[in-house]
């Protein structure tokens, strides 16, 4: 009897977890398919109750995009007397302050400048200076769809709803890397919606999550939270049993990093932030009272990081082994290569891991296609291929670096 190697045990366990995750999402989606259908049908029903809402735009050196962001907010379909904007210049060193002066006469817009203290301080500065029922934030590199707020507001008719997250899309993807993110975000829209049905959303994204004012009164303001204040506040809300909803048709467009290097930096910040916040909120894990966030979202996110680290180790080991064999071969017989090509059926792998791997990809594609459908996109596009090709190679880089940063106590930067 041959005992399975540690390597194959690891591969099968990780694959089982990945499959379990996706099946769980699918089961949840099926369970709520009528609710989703109903939400879609009533999405654009006439809104009668417009609560007052304020959007805070924290800016630090955003002279290129801040105007566009403000204009997109102003052109939103929402009663003007119920909607205001607070722009907080967080000590920009470029011409952001001059650019936003254009709006100083607009009664809907208040402009403030403060010393640089980080995004969370700019947000808190804005929150302290308004009294609206609903408060949101919009990063100065993001734009809103004109129906976004109007579609989100009805979710607050439920007194228990304390925050509503939007559906984020990549703004006009141009580079290869932005096209890949475009697809990733669409998959994200689907997963977010399902997490919402599970009451297990673990991030209230910086761009345009709308909070009830009382959230901050009940649980306090934004914190530094390892540069991922949007994750920390979501976890804090769960800790205090505050409900987070998702509106999958409130579209927000954000400018995705256009190079691998910039994307890498952004993701190291996110992943490192997740790890640090998960450690800070370890009390949530596997506690019955917190429901699916305790048993599903957080544990699976943590396990996925461990799996990636394991995969990195295995890959490095395999590469080292191949290089060793290559060198050994050259040392034995010199540079002599003669490739025999035999396209026989025998050479196609029929390992169990291959079939499970294909299942994992098929389930992911199914979720992606449904995600595209609910976010009003065509079902298929060539960008899907970019996403499948590029992410398995680059994602391990930032996960590895984030774990490294956590272990060695390194801090991440915003830019």
């Amino acid at each position, binding site marked *: 009897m*041959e005992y399975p190697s540690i390597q194959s045990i690891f591969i099968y366990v990780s694959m*089982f977890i990945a*499959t*379990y995750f996706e*099946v*769980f999402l699918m*089961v*949840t989606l099926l*369970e709520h398919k009528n609710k989703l259908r109903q939400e879609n049908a009533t999405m654009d029903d006439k809104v009668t109750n417009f609560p007052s809402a304020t959007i805070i735009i924290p800016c630090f050196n955003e002279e290129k995009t801040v105007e566009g962001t403000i204009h997109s907010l102003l052109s939103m379909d929402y009663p003007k007397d119920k909607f205001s904007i607070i722009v907080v210049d967080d000590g920009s060193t470029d011409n952001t302050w001059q650019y936003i002066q254009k709006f100083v006469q607009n009664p809907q817009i208040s402009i403030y400048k403060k010393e640089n203290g980080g995004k969370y301080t700019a947000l808190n500065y804005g929150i302290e200076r308004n009294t609206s029922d609903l408060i949101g934030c919009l990063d100065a590199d993001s734009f809103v769809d004109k129906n976004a707020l109007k579609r989100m507001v009805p979710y607050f008719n439920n007194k228990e709803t304390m925050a509503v997250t939007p559906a984020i899309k990549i703004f006009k993807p141009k580079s290869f890397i932005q096209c890949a993110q475009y697809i990733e975000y669409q998959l994200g829209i689907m997963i977010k919606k399902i997490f919402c049905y599970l009451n297990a959303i673990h991030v209230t994204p910086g761009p345009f999550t709308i909070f009830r004012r009382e959230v901050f009164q009940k649980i306090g303001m934004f914190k530094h939270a390892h540069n991922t204040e949007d994750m920390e506040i979501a976890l804090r809300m769960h800790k205090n049993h505050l409900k987070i909803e998702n509106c999958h048709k409130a579209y927000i467009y954000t400018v995705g990093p256009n190079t691998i290097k910039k994307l890498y930096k952004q993701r190291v910040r996110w992943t490192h932030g997740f790890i640090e916040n998960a450690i800070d909120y370890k009390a949530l894990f596997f506690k*019955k009272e917190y*429901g*699916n966030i305790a*048993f599903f979202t957080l544990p699976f996110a943590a396990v996925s990081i461990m799996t990636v680290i394991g995969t990195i180790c295995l890959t490095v080991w395999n590469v080292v082994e191949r290089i060793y*064999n290559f060198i*050994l*071969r050259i040392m*034995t*017989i010199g540079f*002599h290569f*003669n490739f*025999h090509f*035999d396209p*026989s*059926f*025998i*050479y196609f*792998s*029929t*390992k*169990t891991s*291959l*079939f*499970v791997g294909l*299942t994992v990809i098929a389930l992911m594609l199914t979720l992606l296609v449904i995600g595209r459908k609910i976010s009003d996109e065509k079902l298929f596009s060539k960008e899907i291929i970019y996403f499948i090709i590029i992410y398995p190679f680059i994602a391990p880089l930032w996960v590895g670096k984030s774990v490294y940063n956590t272990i060695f106590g390194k801090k991440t930067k915003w830019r």
Partner: protein
Amino acid sequence: MKNISKYIITFIITSLLFVTAFYLSNYFANKKTADIKATEDQIAIDLLSSETQFDILKQSSCNQLDDSILADELDTLGSRLSSMETQIGTDNAEVIQLKKYYSILQIKDYLLMSAYGKECKLKPVSIVYFYANDCQECQKQGYVLTYLRDTYPGLRTYTFDYNLDLSAVKTLISLNKIPTTLPALIINGKTYNGFMSSDAVEKIIKPLLPIASSTSATSIKK
């Protein structure tokens, strides 16, 4: 927890998906095994045919015996078998069974070639190679033999797993006094033990080669 049943249902579905994957994997692995088995049967028939042909022609011309096709078949079979070993595992009972069959076919070809050479006053150059899965130097020896086979098409190489539980191989080992220290080679009947570089082997086979007529024989494992 209120939705524990969902966690259990998901577990069951995931397990079913895994069982299906195992089943599919097994199904295709069996197909492969059957494929190799069929090739082996075909080679066995070809060998028997060659033997018979040889018996018939013994009295007449030696030129009419064509063995090059058989050598190519054995070669392909060898590399397919080693690919099966890496995919299904060297300890798999069916893989071992196929390997035994393959070893016998190689021995038969080796004997036939020797008899053919003797009868027709030819000296075919052959290398019989013994390896083991746990032998350090065997990987290097494998590289050398693959190189030689590619460089000298007239050379026939036969590869045997030293630890294969097969009486014919054991007889070959004891008859040629193959030591346990591997790798070991029999070059044209003479036993050499320990790793031999390509230069060392070439020195022995080069003067003999122009006489040999056939093409390569097997794939070189390990």
